[in-house]
């Protein structure tokens, strides 16, 4: 509570500084002085009135702060002032926040999932070729300027990917290179002696060649879809993998519950796909997800036996993931018609949606997603490096701890040791990093949004600073600052939840 008060005080103080900084940065009427149109004076008067330029700065600040304070009181409508063109800042912010949130949340989630899993493998295979390559890659990513990568992605990834999608045939050379790469990666992840490595390399390479050749031959990339059989198979596999990683295949109750609920979601999803396709909206999908989770919880409760709690947890997770697979399948089905609608230029480089684009729910989702691909990729590169390094370091530290040695000497399986004893403890510092990283990702979003022409918080902020337009700047600043404070508090709470030795004071 005391900390909360202090943070509020700090926020207040920094708004004063920020307001002062923006007002001294220049003259908000600068562009109008150079205006040549006959109604110049009227424009000037209008802006003076909107921005209350006839009043002294402290008074302007107080009136802004008064309006902003209404946001805290329920029942009163939020008033963050107007921009210099007379638009309400709250409305401006609403659009900007949704755009930035889509970008940031997608990239943060992907970066965490990818970074943490790669970091763990890297730690488990310390001093392997995989580890060294990743260490170098992480350092390289740390040193990459975001804007440079973003421009490169725009120039190469987008254009070449679009050209390729026009006639999606995977050439033999690409197949060979990808097969070699996947062979190397799997061989160094799984490890073992030379014989085993060679076997793994061959298996992975052959599997890659077969998949790619098949997909290319049936022109899958032109009309990507999973199909009912694949959806059900993937769903079952999801259930299996979740159990395998979460609690081990030996616990039959958990296994049956997870596979059953994942399979059920897959089958029902496929059977009802026609209905979902036509009636889809976010509310319907959310309701379906909740229903799936509830059913999965019931299945877990029924089949869990001795391991009721882990069974429910694992079943719900599997069901949701399987639901994701179904969603992906439906999305992919709409892909060909979307591609025709945008004349084959699928991967977009500018904005957050195709202007004047109308289509079904699924086409609109694809449209949003294709606009997100490149900026998300640019953002991921940077935080991915942080997460892998951090997870690796934390995992190494934990693997060296006494309790892990104890667990090993008790004869527990490697999976139990790694997942239940090491991973959970290694995750504690990573959880705090995730919260803190959110702030820096928002900073990176400013640049990414500029390059990709997205109208998010970052570009709103930088444009308003350029125009000496204090109210939007303050609005963006408040949103950023509040979210950083909230995320720091969340980090503390997660920390205390994951590590009971720490008490919230």
């Amino acid at each position, binding site marked *: 509570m005391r900390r909360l008060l*202090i943070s509020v005080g*700090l*926020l207040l*103080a*920094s708004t004063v*500084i*920020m307001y002062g*900084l*923006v007002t*001294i*940065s*220049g003259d908000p009427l600068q562009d109008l002085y150079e205006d040549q149109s006959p109604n110049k004076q009227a424009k000037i008067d209008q802006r003076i009135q909107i921005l209350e330029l006839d009043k002294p700065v402290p008074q302007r600040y107080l009136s802004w702060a008064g309006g902003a304070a209404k946001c805290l009181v329920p029942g009163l409508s939020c008033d963050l002032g107007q921009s210099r063109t007379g638009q309400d800042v709250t409305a401006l912010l609403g659009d900007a926040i949704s755009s930035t949130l889509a970008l940031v949340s997608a990239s943060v989630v992907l970066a965490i999932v990818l970074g943490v899993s790669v970091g763990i493998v890297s730690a488990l295979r*310390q001093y392997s070729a995989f580890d060294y390559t990743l260490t170098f890659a992480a*350092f*390289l990513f*740390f*040193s*990459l*300027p*975001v*804007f*440079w990568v973003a*421009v490169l992605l725009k*120039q190469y990834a987008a254009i070449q990917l679009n050209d390729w999608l026009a006639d999606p045939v995977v050439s033999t050379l690409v197949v060979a290179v990808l097969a070699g790469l996947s062979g190397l990666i799997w061989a160094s992840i799984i490890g073992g002696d030379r014989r085993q490595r060679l076997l793994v390399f061959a298996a992975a390479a052959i599997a890659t060649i077969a998949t790619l050749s098949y997909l290319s031959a049936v022109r899958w990339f032109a009309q990507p879809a999973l199909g009912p059989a694949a959806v059900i198979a993937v769903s079952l596999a999801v259930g299996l993998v979740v159990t395998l990683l979460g609690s081990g295949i030996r616990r039959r109750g958990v296994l049956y519950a997870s596979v059953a609920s994942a399979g059920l979601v897959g089958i029902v999803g496929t059977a009802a796909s026609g209905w979902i396709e036509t009636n889809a909206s976010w509310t319907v999908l959310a309701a379906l997800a909740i229903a799936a989770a509830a059913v999965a919880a019931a299945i877990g409760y029924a089949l869990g036996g001795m391991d009721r709690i882990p069974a429910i947890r694992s079943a719900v997770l599997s069901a949701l993931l399987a639901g994701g697979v179904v969603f992906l399948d439906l999305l992919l089905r709409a892909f060909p018609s979307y591609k025709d609608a945008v004349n084959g230029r699928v991967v977009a480089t500018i904005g957050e949606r195709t202007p004047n684009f109308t289509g079904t729910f699924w086409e609109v989702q694809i449209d949003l997603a294709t606009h997100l691909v490149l900026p998300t990729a640019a953002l991921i590169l940077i935080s991915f490096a942080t997460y892998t390094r951090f997870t690796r*370091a934390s995992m*190494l*530290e934990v*693997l*060296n701890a006494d309790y892990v*040695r104890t667990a090993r000497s008790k004869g527990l399986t490697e999976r139990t040791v790694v997942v239940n004893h090491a991973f959970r403890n290694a995750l504690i510092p990573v959880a705090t990093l995730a919260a803190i990283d959110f702030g820096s990702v928002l*900073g990176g979003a*400013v*640049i990414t949004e*500029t390059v990709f022409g997205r109208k998010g918080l970052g570009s709103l*902020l*930088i444009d308003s*600073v*350029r125009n*000496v337009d204090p109210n939007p*700047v303050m609005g963006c*600043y408040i949103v*950023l*600052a509040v979210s*950083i404070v909230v995320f720091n508090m969340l980090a503390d709470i997660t920390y205390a939840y994951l590590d009971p030795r720490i008490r919230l004071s």
Partner: protein
Amino acid sequence: MTAEATPTAAEEPTLVGPLPGVEVEREFTVKARTQGELVRRRFFRHRAAMIGLVVLLGVILLSVTSIGIGPVPGWWNQDYLATGSSVDGGRPTLDLTPEVVDGQREFIGPHPFGQENTGRDYFAMTMRGTQQSLFIAFSVGLISVLLGTLVGAIAGYFGGLLGNVLMRITDLVITLPLIVVASVVSFRFGGAGVGALALVLGLLVWTQLARLMRGEVLSLREKEFVEAARAMGAGPWRIIGRHILPNVVGTILVSGTLWTSSAILLETALSFLGVGVRAPDISLGSLISDYQAAFQTRPWLFWWPGLFIILIALSINFIGDGLRDAFDPRQNRVRA
């Protein structure tokens, strides 16, 4: 180890008690190393850090000697501001592929990095940009280390009201978004040049180090050796300077290095957004920003500055990693 040991074993230094005869002499030939020597040895054996150091020194040397600094001229014959007629569409004349591959001798040519739209020599421009970016990065590193150490040490050692006030100021500075402050400074004092930019960035990024330092100092000041120094009548500044700082020099150095490398990315990003180094002056970021539109026609205008940013940031990062390993070898060779 006994006298019956093999001849090779007898040559090994041994720490087992006083042994008869010649062994005793050998025992004292084990070289005693101070903490500093150990750290230096570990650092100089860190291969990645050494490569980083060489590359960084090479880049610095190249950028400084080629176009010179200020009034001192360098060996490169073109100026980064002089326009000229464009040769071969401004394509780079640098050809480093060996003769056996493409049948042409390796060649530097009049414009190794090409020319930009108005015929300015891009090599000279890149070198100028490198100088400015390096200058900013190192100044930011230096300022943030000095300020952060000072604030953190004072807040940690003295604590109380002074420490609280200092830490609240730190928290306040953390909340200020860099981009806004930098752009305000840039628009208001745009003509002040790179020095102002470096100062502003330095004045904003010291906060992390201050927090880190405070934590370390808080735990160090309770240690017995500090107690002993105080008992012998040492004043607070002497304790901080002689007893505490040497123990945190690793933290300071590592964090300073890493901040230097982030500073170079930060500066280039700000210049890219148009709020850092501004025309007519050049930094690596402003070069990329200015010529990203020309990517289709003259891609080299985009590649060279990017390459130099990556080279500098990567080598500084590797040096930082080497320093961390040297000061804190706990993370190496884990897993029994």
